[in-house]
């Protein structure tokens, strides 16, 4: 209960702070729209030479792109807004104040900030999924069924990102590593079946991008299969447990700055 109240408080203060920079929001909206237009163009090129991409017709591939855009929005609004700050706290030694608060430190570090930058992507992603879904004749139940795998994908992404952030206790320049993760996630623009076998293995088992966009999309389209869904659940659960214990492990090495 306390955590819910805190969450609401964090959200409202962040939005108030962000409202100072309204121009940033306009810029973010414009670049989101431009980026999406470009992504659509890039995707359409594949359909000039073939009717399907990895077995997915245009509208189905749009759903994957929609989930990818949604994920980008979440990254910008929640993940990068919060987790990229951990390194700063470690460098300045202000992580002390976070640890002293009577709140779980992982919760505080993961929810403190909210950035409006991701809103355009969140809206556009939802819009694309809705548009493609309508053209494919999907019903409300289909959308509901996709929520759970989507949530699993988000938890997976969050856990990976948080673990990278936690390594800043040892290495100061983690920013570059997160950048590598973000670039790898770009693979989520395309259905996993559009990749050759070696790529597929990499994006399923090494960087599990497949579980973030392809699995929710397949569920939405009513072709979700039990092994994949189970995989998504196990992966999300395992990674979130690992992330949490990793954070507590990392804290043992935190020596604070200038003391």
């Amino acid at each position: 209960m306390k955590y819910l109240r805190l969450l609401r408080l964090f959200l409202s203060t962040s939005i108030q702070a962000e409202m100072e920079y309204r121009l940033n929001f306009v810029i973010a909206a414009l670049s989101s729209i431009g980026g999406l237009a470009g992504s659509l163009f890039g995707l359409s090129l594949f359909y000039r030479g073939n009717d399907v991409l990895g077995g997915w017709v245009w509208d189905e591939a749009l759903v994957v792109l929609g989930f990818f855009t949604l994920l980008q929005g979440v990254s910008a609004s929640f993940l990068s807004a919060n987790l990229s700050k951990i390194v700063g706290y470690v460098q300045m030694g202000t992580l002390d104040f976070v640890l002293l608060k009577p709140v779980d430190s992982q919760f505080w570090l993961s929810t403190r900030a909210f950035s409006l930058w991701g809103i355009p992507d969140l809206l556009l992603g939802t819009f694309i999924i809705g548009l493609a879904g309508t053209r494919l004749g999907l019903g409300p139940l289909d959308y509901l069924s996709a929520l759970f795998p989507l949530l699993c994908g988000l938890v997976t992404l969050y856990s990976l990102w948080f673990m990278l952030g936690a390594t800043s206790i040892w290495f100061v320049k983690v920013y570059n590593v997160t950048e590598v993760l973000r670039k790898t996630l770009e693979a989520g623009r395309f259905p996993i079946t559009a990749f050759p076998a070696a790529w597929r293995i990499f994006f399923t088992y090494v960087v599990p991008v497949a579980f973030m966009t392809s699995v929710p999309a397949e569920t939405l389209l009513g072709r979700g299969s039990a092994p994949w869904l189970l995989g998504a659940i196990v992966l999300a659960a395992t990674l979130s447990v690992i992330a949490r214990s990793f954070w507590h492990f990392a804290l043992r090495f935190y020596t604070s700055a200038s003391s």
Partner: protein
Amino acid sequence: MTMLVHKIRTFLSVYYAHMLEYRAEIVFWMLAGLFPFILMGVWMEAGAKGQFALSAVDLGRYFVAVFIVRQMSVVWVIWEFERQVVEGRLSPFLLQPIDPVWRHVAGHLCERLARAPFFVALLTAFFLFQPDLFWLPSFQNGIAALAAMVCAFVLRFLIQYTFAMLCFWTERASAVQEFWFLLYLFLSGLIAPLDVFPEEMRDFALWTPFPYLVNFPARLLVGLETDLLRSFMILGAWMVVFFVLNRLLWRLGLRQYSGMGA
């Protein structure tokens, strides 16, 4: 003359030492630049199954070439320049009898040198993993591709340094760069070779500077048919445009510069 050689030598050795300090970052930047390999996967798979202007192997090689071209033409001058202007650190450089741009140029060149061993290691690893994609360009194509890559770097540097001049008027010059990057992403041939574009789109793109930053040198490297004369002429024209614009904005900007924090 000896003075000039001496200056160049000093600059290069200083900036090479500086860049060696950042080896770990350079490796991560390089890994973040692996994007072409993701697209390579999708395009090779698509090329093997559908009817495209290029074969699957050519598509694969094209994206290796894109990776090489991009690694050779990385430019970040605008972020460095923006910091220098905002923090007022540009002022001491202005007092020296040498244009501050040469510092950036030396930094960019030496970074390539510091990157080289990792770059070679990564390419070797890739070709061991996909030996079918290995190829060596013919001597002529190699020379032409090298020239095109140097030009691509120069043009990209000129463009970004021109946008950097806007820092004299606004603190958010890198926003302009980000919009420009969107166009670059989709028109340069980074996401797909221009051969698979719709015809009108390709004809339009070929008049813009973008394809000459990626598509043109990459095609030469792979050995695909290219109109050399026309391409180098358009490339040269854009270089002149941005060079003139750059010098103009530099003069106007310096009058505007108030040396914040100095």
